[in-house]
């Protein structure tokens, strides 16, 4: 076996052990269902507003929630989760805030 394969295999094993199983068994912290179907939670909305203010301006101007529709914010927020290093919980809080404000 080539020596270069070892770190890749280790990397993959760590990834799988640390999360893939959870995700595929639907027990991930990220809800399997669309966030738009979630019941409105005022506390989550408030957490989302705070996380939005604290995270988005780290790089760019505050975007108006009305710029996108609910479904577009879903994809945009998943993209931003990767970019900004957001947790799944923060991502969903911000999404609820944006979807409730557009």
């Amino acid at each position: 076996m080539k020596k270069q394969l070892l770190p890749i295999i280790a990397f993959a094993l760590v990834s799988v052990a640390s999360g893939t199983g959870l995700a595929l068994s639907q027990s991930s912290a990220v809800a399997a269902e669309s966030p738009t179907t979630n019941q409105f939670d005022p506390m989550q909305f408030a957490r989302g507003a705070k996380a939005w203010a604290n995270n988005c301006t780290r790089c760019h101007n505050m975007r108006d929630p009305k710029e996108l529709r609910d479904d577009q914010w879903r994809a945009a927020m998943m993209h931003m989760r990767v970019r900004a290093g957001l947790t799944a919980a923060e991502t969903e809080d911000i999404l609820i805030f944006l979807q409730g404000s557009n």
Partner: protein
Amino acid sequence: MKTAPQSKLSSTLCLLILVSASPVFAQSHADRIDELEAKTLAMAEELAVLRAELEKERQAPDSEDMQSIRAESVAARQAAQNAEIAANEWKNSNSVTHLAGYASADYVSPENGNAAFVANFNPMFHFQFKDRILWEAEIEVQIEENGDTNMALEYSSIDLFLNNNMVLLAGKFLSPIGNFRQNMHPSWINKLPSAPPGFGHDGAAPLAEVGVQLRGGIRVGEQSKMTYAGFIGNGPKLEGEDGEIHGIDTDGFTGDPDDEKVFGGRVSLLPFPKFEFAVSGAFGDAAVVENDGVDFEGDPTRDYKVFGVDASYQWNNLDLRSEFIRQDIADEQTSIAPEGGIWETWYVQGAYKFADAKWEGVARYTDYTSPHADKSQEQWALGVNYLLAPSAMLKFAYESNTGLVGESTDDDRWLVQIAYGY
């Protein structure tokens, strides 16, 4: 003694009392009560009959008309439910497709040379399945000076969301070394029309990588958090020219001629919101695989190291950020280009919004050092931006550049740019 009128009034009242108490009036009152009782009984009987008929009708099978009305009512209710479900389908689908991106139109006027208009277009695609998978890609489309259109795949990765704190990326991704390249370079985000020297092609900052990356964020208490990214990739290609390393090509490649992988990552700490401090780095091997513009094989591998530090802070309308990145190629005596080199750049930038955050002033200082004197550059850039919208900016900037005399790196420039992120 009563007066005469008082006496008449008393007499009249007595007479009325006597008349009203007479048997004739008493008989008339009893008749009216009997009449009312009779009417009440009749109405009660009528009500009982109606109730009986209603109950009978309820228990009896529907008439054809009634059945038809009931069927229409059910159908209408079902149609309304279907319409509601259809109207909400776009909200509740498992998959989402989203087109995003940014575009800019520039006018660049150098001190020595011709002023010209420039245009760029960077569409981004997001395809999401539930909250588990995201495929994201960005294409950079540029118009060349000769009119040709240049297209490049900036990144294309499948992102698997593993848990609350972890995302696994596979494919081509923007280098997580530093912050400018991965987060700040889009024209609608960058506060100046140009990238800091050293953050472009063949510069000091790695651009992209093809491989796998694990990244995410972890909350630490109420206020603090950390983010992390670690990757394994094919690594850069070294370009040789006239016996020297001309540059480090870090565009991200699907081939790996030197057969040596590069490992790297970035860790950032946010002790409180809006303040971030990060350290990043990478190491591995690289080799000259292109010499004097043609493919070259058999060159020995050599050490390749990257180190970066970046920080940013936002307070009200003030935005401060700074970044340092260094790429180091070791010497290799048996190589076609024996001498290695250090490509190093750093910048510090401050921006402040004013006039209801519609206007923004920006100042940036950059010092880029390359092993090649004609590429090294020191730059002061000053700009004023007008925010047309949160994601649209009109930028005016002036660059004071100091480089090798006679080179474009020594030309001061005026720049105007309109940028829009969508």
